[in-house]
């Protein structure tokens, strides 16, 4: 298994500001994933983050809006930039454990006013 923590657990932000979400894993992992879960909805993959390379974004998500850092094998950040109320969601990070299991963090609940 993997123990994953996220900071902050929740935040309320003003329109136009940015928030950086941190994801810390208790062991080294190659790939980390960032998801968004809008209220009452399923999860949508934002991007995949490998250490030492640029993140790979899914359709509909761009680096300018959701810049990601992956400075080492246990840590990643996701920034939600220039926020609007439509960005209000739960943001989750996950890591992969072979053969094909992902472990998710507790999520960061973001409300944009």
């Amino acid at each position, binding site marked *: 298994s993997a123990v994953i923590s996220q900071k902050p657990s929740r935040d309320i932000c003003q329109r136009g500001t940015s928030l950086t979400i941190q994801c810390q894993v208790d062991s080294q992992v190659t790939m980390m994933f960032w998801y968004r879960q809008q209220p009452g909805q*399923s999860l949508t993959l934002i991007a995949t983050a490998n250490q030492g390379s640029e993140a790979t974004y899914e359709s509909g998500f761009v680096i300018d809006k959701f810049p990601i850092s992956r400075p080492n094998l246990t840590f990643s950040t996701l920034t939600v930039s220039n926020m609007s109320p439509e960005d209000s969601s739960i943001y989750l990070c996950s890591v992969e454990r072979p053969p094909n299991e992902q472990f*998710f963090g507790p999520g960061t609940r973001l409300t944009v006013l």
Partner: protein
Amino acid sequence: LAKTTQPISMDSYEGQEVNITCSHNNIATNDYITWYQQFPSQGPRFIIQGYKTKVTNEVASLFIPADRKSSTLSLPRVSLSDTAVYYCLVGGQAAGNKLTFGGGTRVLVKP
């Protein structure tokens, strides 16, 4: 990536068996079927994974027919704490395989 279809919601009572069927008509030869459980205010949690026939662990059983176009997650003797959203996913086992979540099934266990 194979698309999945599940019932939106199901109600049950404590002690009953809950069976959730997922359709995945265009599943690929190398795709596995995986189920996740999500409680409110938590991230999804892996429950079970299988390729064909039947898989059982301490939490659930997964039944997969020969054509693999559907699968059924079986939760034996549910309790109130099994109230959650259950997601069926299909995909390969290669490293970096991206998970595509469908709508999930909201299971409500009543006393």
